């Protein structure tokens, strides 16, 4: 296998392990974080904080590199416009996140922890993406 497959495989594995160690594959913990008016569980803030600190360092390395290690160029989002779809989409995502305590990463990682329910979430998420795509084409 080439580094263009092994690198994302390693990154995905590291990501899945991090989510699981951090408790994010447990919807009760995620909903506990969102439950700030009830029995609040701050664990997710530590997960987010740890990840953001490491990535803040990585972003400072990027300008010193001519190109990525295993690819020709950097593909960094360059949009800065705050659109209704950004805010509306994020709000819909947040409602779904709150209902089941799952977002895309933990949903996929949990396929080996709670297979039937995680697979139902992943298929529903795919269906949602497909519905939006069909809707946007018309």
């Amino acid at each position, binding site marked *: 296998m080439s*580094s*263009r497959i*092994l*690198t*994302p495989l*390693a*990154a*995905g*594995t590291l*990501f*899945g*392990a*991090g*989510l699981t*160690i*951090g408790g994010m594959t*447990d919807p*009760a913990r995620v*909903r506990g974080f*969102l439950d700030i008016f009830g029995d609040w569980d701050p664990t997710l803030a*530590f*997960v987010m*904080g*740890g*990840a*953001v*600190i*490491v*990535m803040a360092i990585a972003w400072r390395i990027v300008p010193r590199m001519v190109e*990525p*290690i295993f690819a020709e160029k*950097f593909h960094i989002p360059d949009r800065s416009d*705050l659109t209704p*779809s*950004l*805010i*509306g*989409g*994020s*709000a*819909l*995502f947040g*409602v779904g996140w*709150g209902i*089941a305590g799952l*977002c*895309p*990463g933990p949903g996929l990682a949990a396929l*080996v*922890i709670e297979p039937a*329910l*995680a697979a*139902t*979430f992943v*298929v*529903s*998420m795919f269906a*949602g*993406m497909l519905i*939006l795509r069909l809707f946007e084409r018309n």
Partner: protein
Amino acid sequence: MTIPGFPDAAPLAGLIGGILIGLSAAVMLLGMGRIAGVSGIFAKATGVGGSGISRGGAWAFVLGLPLGALIVAIVTGGVDAQFAGFGPIIVAGLLVGIGTRLGSGCTSGHGVCGVSRLSARSIVATATFMVAGIVTVAVMNAMGMEVLK
């Protein structure tokens, strides 16, 4: 390690998990030149989204997620998880699918990669889905809706 007043919190495990997630995103950025946004990578792998890494690379990342979870589950002898039932999971999945595509990202792409870059779009998106999630849980609790089994 515990935090006074929050006996259920796992700050150290959370921090270690978060650092691993950050390292993963750093591998994607410095190695592949790409943002580790799970919703976008999943859309690419399944063919519902256009941009991002190659389709093979997207599948490799997607398959790595449960692989990493499996390794942790084996090493630690099992992982606790309390899930919602099928009904709420289907509604949530649909909303997450539609919302992440419409909003161009999720907790990883906006919350980790974008916020750490101080992207205005990602900071607004993250604040929006956090508030929406908090309000949703608060409303469900106020209505006495217990979704977790």
